[in-house]
């Protein structure tokens, strides 16, 4: 009758090391799961303003973008100007943006281009809402992935009233505005 060999500590350590090595090798050479990043869907965004105050970063990683192929290059741009502005110019009292992050560039009479300086933008979405209601809706918010620290649980997503945040794959880190997005906007 053969005697069963007793497993000693050294054998156990060898087995565990072999198991760990095999697992690490499999993970290294096997198909790697794609990384996920937080992003907000412009079709669901209701411009509540919480992207400014609820991000762990200050200023927020959420920035406004201008989709130029939707922009009307309007002289009377509601995303840029305070409602009821007497003069359509760059006077500080006429600007809607609380941080003056939007720059108005003359293109040709009577059309202007609106550039957003992301270093100044705090993601409050005032311009987004104004452009959406009164203009073509070319402004929209996105999380800048080069700024976002990709928290495990995004604090803005947690408090977003319209559930506009979701995790998107690394290969498509942004959700761009399209012509159909305008119609898909939820009621405010």
């Amino acid at each position, binding site marked *: 009758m053969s005697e069963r060999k007793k497993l000693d500590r050294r054998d156990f350590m060898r087995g565990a090391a072999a198991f760990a090595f095999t697992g690490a090798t499999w993970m290294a050479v096997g198909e790697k799961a794609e990384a996920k990043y937080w992003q907000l869907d412009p079709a669901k965004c209701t411009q509540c*303003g919480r992207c400014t105050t609820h991000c762990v970063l200050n200023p927020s990683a959420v920035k406004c973008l201008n989709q130029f192929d939707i922009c009307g290059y*309007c002289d*009377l741009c509601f995303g840029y100007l305070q409602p009821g502005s007497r003069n359509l110019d760059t006077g500080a009292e006429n600007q809607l943006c609380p941080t003056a992050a939007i720059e108005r560039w003359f293109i040709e009479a009577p059309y202007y281009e609106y550039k957003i300086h992301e270093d100044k933008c705090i993601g*409050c979405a005032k311009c987004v809402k104004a452009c959406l*209601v*009164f203009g*073509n*809706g070319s402004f929209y918010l996105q999380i800048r992935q080069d700024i976002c620290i990709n928290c495990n649980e995004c604090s803005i997503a947690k408090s977003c009233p319209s559930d506009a945040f979701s995790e998107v794959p690394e290969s498509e880190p942004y959700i761009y505005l399209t012509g159909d997005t305008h119609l898909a906007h939820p*009621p*405010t």
Partner: protein
Amino acid sequence: MKEPVRKTKHPYLAGVVIACVVGAYVYLIASEEKFPEPGPNLVYDIRKFEEVDHVDTRFAEMAPIALNLEDARALEIDGEGNLYVAGKDAIEVFGPDGKSVSRIPVEGTPTCLEFTPDGRLLVGLEDHIDVLDGDRKRIATWGNFTERSMITAIAANEEDIFLADAASRCVLRLDPSGKVIGRIGETDEARDIPGLEVPSPYFDLAFDEDGELWVVNPGKLGLERYRSNGDIVTSWYRASLELDGFSGCCNPTHIAFNSKGRLVTCEKGLVRVKIYDVSTGFFEELVVGSRSFVVPQGVRDMIVDASDRILVLDPRKNAVRIFEQTETQLASHAKETE
């Protein structure tokens, strides 16, 4: 004499109670909202703009016409009162009773429709026009009007056909065979023409009761009247957030005239349908305000039928909504005016 020390039967109870209290405190602190709500300076509040049109009107909404169309964009009425609604790949025809009677297949999604005085149906398809005969069969296609075109409206009379071209930012004048014979509304200081500002594909035109051509200048928030040779006759602009003006970057989006020669306008964003005296540009009354529509929104088309009912193509409801002065309201208005 030494007091006897009282020993509890449960020596851990006090520790458990203290741990629970501390745990609850830590939990409450941890779950407390760390982030402040955005203040008024960080929120764009449109309620004060919406409230401007929260007034009573003499118009009531009738039963809408539900559409079985995808991406409906244009309305038109023929001389017999049939309603034509154009959407993706089809034009649906409704009888005067609002029931669907036929469907005309088209290639693409029409952006505008217009009947010519000789009964042809012109179907605007972004950069070209399909011409349908009385049997609604395609007999011609007109195109290559400009380098790039976005035809958003058509108006036709006995002599001319006028196309509102949002991409070229002008009105194209065509002869009845579809040949371009003129451009209207381009900046011309010598002729005192300020130029049409068209920031978006909302650009409409219509004939008034005298057959004069009125063209919306959406970027200037007003209207301009032109002769067929391109001379400007008159203009008025009403940039205002109040009820008597037009707000936003580009309004009014659609215009039509009722049987009394009054101008009916429709706006996007805060949707408002209003009536103006076209010759002076004076606001007369509100037909329907923004509270009847989901905000923000762009109505796709608006027309006035022979009974002065106002038909609005609502893309969110995918229906033609009908606004009409009821008899009671008409009687009360007559009494008021007496």
